[in-house]
């Protein structure tokens, strides 16, 4: 408890030595490594800051690039929309033209078909009319009517076309010319004789007549003379009327 000078002096010396030892072995190395670590951390922070700045720059560049890309995309989209609109209009116009053309074609085809149907119906109507007229006439005709028609034929014999006469005269058969005479009723002998005389005068060659009965003729004659057929009967007249009406309507 008393104050001891030796202890006092030695303690001062001891503490100074302790400071020196700790400074050499403890503080200096530890502070050095702490400073080194701080430098390392600062360097890492600086590097990180640089990287951050670079990243910011890159981000800025990328954002600008994205903006420009967006603008380009918008422009391209607008151009595409305009082109699509033009193309759509063109296609629609073309489709409408084609549709109109097809409609016109269909209309024409339909009209043609309608016309053909009408013609066919008319033709059928004429045939029916001919048939009805024949059916109507059949009960009314008589051999006298047929004789009258034969008489009419003989009277108009000379009014045959000149070409017909010439053709008949130019015939030069080796033997007698066969002529077939068809009638609805049997012909009288006088009428047959008259026909033979007229035909011999017309042909100027020997002829060979053959007679036959065809009720379809209704009334009158049909003379088959080589390539020629002379009709003087109601059936032929009715057919001729129908063909004449048909031809006039077709025109």
């Amino acid at each position, binding site marked *: 408890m008393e104050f001891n000078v030796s202890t006092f002096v030695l303690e001062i010396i001891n503490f100074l*030595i302790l400071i020196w030892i*700790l400074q050499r072995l403890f503080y200096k190395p530890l502070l050095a*490594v702490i400073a080194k670590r701080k430098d390392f951390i600062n360097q890492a922070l600086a590097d990180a800051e640089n990287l951050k700045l670079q990243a910011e720059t890159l981000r800025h560049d990328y954002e600008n690039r994205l903006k420009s890309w967006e603008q380009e995309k918008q422009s391209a989209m607008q151009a595409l929309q305009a082109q699509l609109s033009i193309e759509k209009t063109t296609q629609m116009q073309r489709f409408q033209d084609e549709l109109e053309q097809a409609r016109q074609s269909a209309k024409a085809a339909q009209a043609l078909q309608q016309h053909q149907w009408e013609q066919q119906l008319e033709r059928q109507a004429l045939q029916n009319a001919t048939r009805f007229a024949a059916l109507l006439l059949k009960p009314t005709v008589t051999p006298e009517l047929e004789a009258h028609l034969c008489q009419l034929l003989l009277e108009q014999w000379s009014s045959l076309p000149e070409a017909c006469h010439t053709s008949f005269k130019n015939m030069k058969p080796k033997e007698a010319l066969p002529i077939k005479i068809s009638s609805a009723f049997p012909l009288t002998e006088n009428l047959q004789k008259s026909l033979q005389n007229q035909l011999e005068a017309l042909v100027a060659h020997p002829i060979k007549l053959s007679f036959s009965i065809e009720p379809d003729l209704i009334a009158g004659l049909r003379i088959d003379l080589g390539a020629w057929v002379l009709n003087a009967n109601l059936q032929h007249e009715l057919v001729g009327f129908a063909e004449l009406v048909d031809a006039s309507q077709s025109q």
Partner: protein
Amino acid sequence: MVIDVTGIVIDSAILTTWGIMAVLSIFAWLTTRRLELFPGAIQTCVEGIIAAIDEAILAVAPDHGRQILPFIASLWIFLIIANLVSLIPGLHSPTREISVTSALAVLVFLSVHWFGIKTHGLKKYLHHYLTPSPILLPFHLISEFTRTLALAIRLFGNIMSLEMAAMLILLVAGFLAPIPILMLHIIEALVQAYIFGMLALIYLAGAMQSQQLNAQE
């Protein structure tokens, strides 16, 4: 135990101090021989101690922290171990001797003037005793003496009384009774070491930085 070598008395306080110095030297050598940038557990621990001391010093003396760190850090480390060494049976704290605490207080006293003169020069340093008025010079001188004496007496009185109280309770109440007192001893030892080192730091910082403040004014 007292050894007298040609008039130089080596008592238990000196021997304990040497032991503490040896332990600290070995500890310092062992912990700092392989320092790495990425520290392990022990290195982290000792770096934490130094970093804490450094921060405390820089908080008080930001401009001269590194200059006074060895002295203040050594004071704190030595006093903590010296105050706690009496917890080991058979050993006594060196700081229960007035000679030891006086030596440390005198070292603080000398360090204050040493660092003050080193920082500002002798003339400027001595001039601060005349500020703000020369009339205050005696008070400055008395303050220098009394605060040094207070440093020594405070540490000596606290540590010596702690040990004596523990001893008396051990004698009176038995073997396990002084344990609360020993726990109080730990707290008191740490507090006294902190107070001694912090006062020394404040004195040093005052000597080194008051001149700068005056110069700035």
